[in-house]
């Protein structure tokens, strides 16, 4: 039971209708992927490869065009608090201060203030924002905002964490700290994580598995298991080998796409 895949999809395809050109655009095609309970997978791919579409389908924001998809053995009917999403642009509610942002989820689920207070405080402490609780999102740095966005979803005790290039807008130092914290938190909370990035280094640093996707239409080109113990040292030879392997695959992926585009009508 424990090793049954949490997210399982087979032959998943997503096509959008391009209204301006009256044709269909295939964002991702024939995706077959299994993510096990407690597994941390990272997805890399050139921009426009449909990785965000895939994540939005898992989140329930968008519907699949065809194929099979189950989460915890059930089909998806829409967004839900069991699948937490962290967006690249943070998506904090600007009219709520930090604490109110974190309280948003519990409130919507009908949890009383006295019940949620301790959890919310603990979550703010976990991400190191307890002293900033009364600040509004625009008063925070990008790093603090993403921490807050993380606290806002983790307070709901989700099983699955879907992250769409969450650290892309951060400076290198902040990114490094947050990567480390995320690694620790996801292990502690036994989260199943799908993490989208365009940084190969980040993918190898965080993932139990790295999934490489090709450019549009997005397909899975490789699924590499990273067997380096944590914490991982990005300067070690083993890490470098993986990084080279993923980079090569990624290069192949974009070459395949370029070739297919050249052949295409």
């Amino acid at each position, binding site marked *: 039971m424990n090793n049954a895949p949490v997210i399982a999809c087979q032959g998943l395809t997503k096509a959008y209708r391009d209204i301006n050109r009256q044709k269909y655009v295939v964002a991702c095609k024939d995706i077959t992927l299994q993510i096990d309970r407690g597994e941390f997978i990272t997805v890399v791919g050139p921009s426009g490869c449909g990785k965000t579409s895939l994540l939005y389908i898992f*989140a*329930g*924001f968008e519907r699949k065009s065809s194929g099979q998809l189950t989460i915890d053995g059930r089909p998806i009917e*829409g*967004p*839900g*608090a069991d*699948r*937490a*999403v962290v*967006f690249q*642009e943070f*998506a*904090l*509610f*600007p*009219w*709520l*201060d930090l604490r109110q942002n974190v309280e*948003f*989820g519990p409130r*919507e*689920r009908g949890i009383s203030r006295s019940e949620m207070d301790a959890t919310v405080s603990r979550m703010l402490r976990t991400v190191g924002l307890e002293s900033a609780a009364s600040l*509004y999102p*625009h*008063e925070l740095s990008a790093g603090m905002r993403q921490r807050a966005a993380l606290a*806002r*979803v983790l307070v*709901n005790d989700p099983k699955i964490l879907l992250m769409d290039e969450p650290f892309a807008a951060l400076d290198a130092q902040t990114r490094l700290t947050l990567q480390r914290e995320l690694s620790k938190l996801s292990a502690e909370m036994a989260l199943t994580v799908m993490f989208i990035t365009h940084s190969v280094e980040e993918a190898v640093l965080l993932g139990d598995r790295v999934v490489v996707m090709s450019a549009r239409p997005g397909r899975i080109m490789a699924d590499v298991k990273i067997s380096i113990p944590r914490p991982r040292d990005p300067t070690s030879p083993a890490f470098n080998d993986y990084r080279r392997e993923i980079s090569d695959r990624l290069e192949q992926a974009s070459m395949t796409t370029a070739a297919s585009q050249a052949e295409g009508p």
Partner: protein
Amino acid sequence: MTESNTPALCGGFDEATEDPKQILLLPNWLGRWALGLMLPALLILLWQIAGNLGWMPPGSIPTPWAVIESWYVWIFGPATPLAWHSGTWTLYVLLSLRRVAAGFAIAAATGVTFGLLLGWYSVMNDIFDGLINFLRAIPTTAWVPFTVFFFGIHESAAIFLIAFGAFFPIATSVAAGARQTPRTLIRAALMLGTPPRRLLRRVVLPSTLPVTFAALRVGLGLSWVLVIVSEMLAVQGGLGYALWSAYQVNRLDLIVDAIVTVGALGLISDRLLVQVSHYALRWQRGLIGR
């Protein structure tokens, strides 16, 4: 005076050494205020001098001093059935204020509610878009004869005209604002467990708040326009009524009194609304350079 002021200021400075800006801001703010008053004061002075020197034809434009004198009578004069412009100022101000308050309150409540529904539910937009754009294209003043015919010379005529006229700009702006609600915020709320039917209140409404306050300011300004129009044509009493009555007896001094009164009331009510919006939008402070 200056001598005694300076030590007091310095004393305050010493006490608040942690944030000297707080103290420095006050004279700065006062200075800017004085700067803003300089031009109006100069214009009034020139106007008075021009009157005294006989540059203006007598009996045409009154001097500032004549304006103030007639204003005094209008405010403090004995109430008499023989002259409407004696001692009626407070009553007229209250009448106009009441009409604006009632009309604007109706327009704000219905306009914001309707605008949010219109912007958020595409069905609502499909149903009402044509009708609203047609009604919006009719200048509100064109409704005056109809309104008087329908309501008679009665308070409700003025209140209806204000509410009806201010409703459309508020509703259409709020609808446009609601349509601009960032998609990620909607998605974030859904993902945090907000049921779709509650999105309007939990995300669209607060997200539209900045646009809503801008729309309310436009609506309030329009309310003052419409109260004057309706008092000139449709109801008795009030500043518009005073304006029209003064015109009919060639009392330009009273006309100026009424104009300045309306301007001051419009300015004060707008400032009040801005204060409310500053409080409601305090989460935005520093975001837009204020």
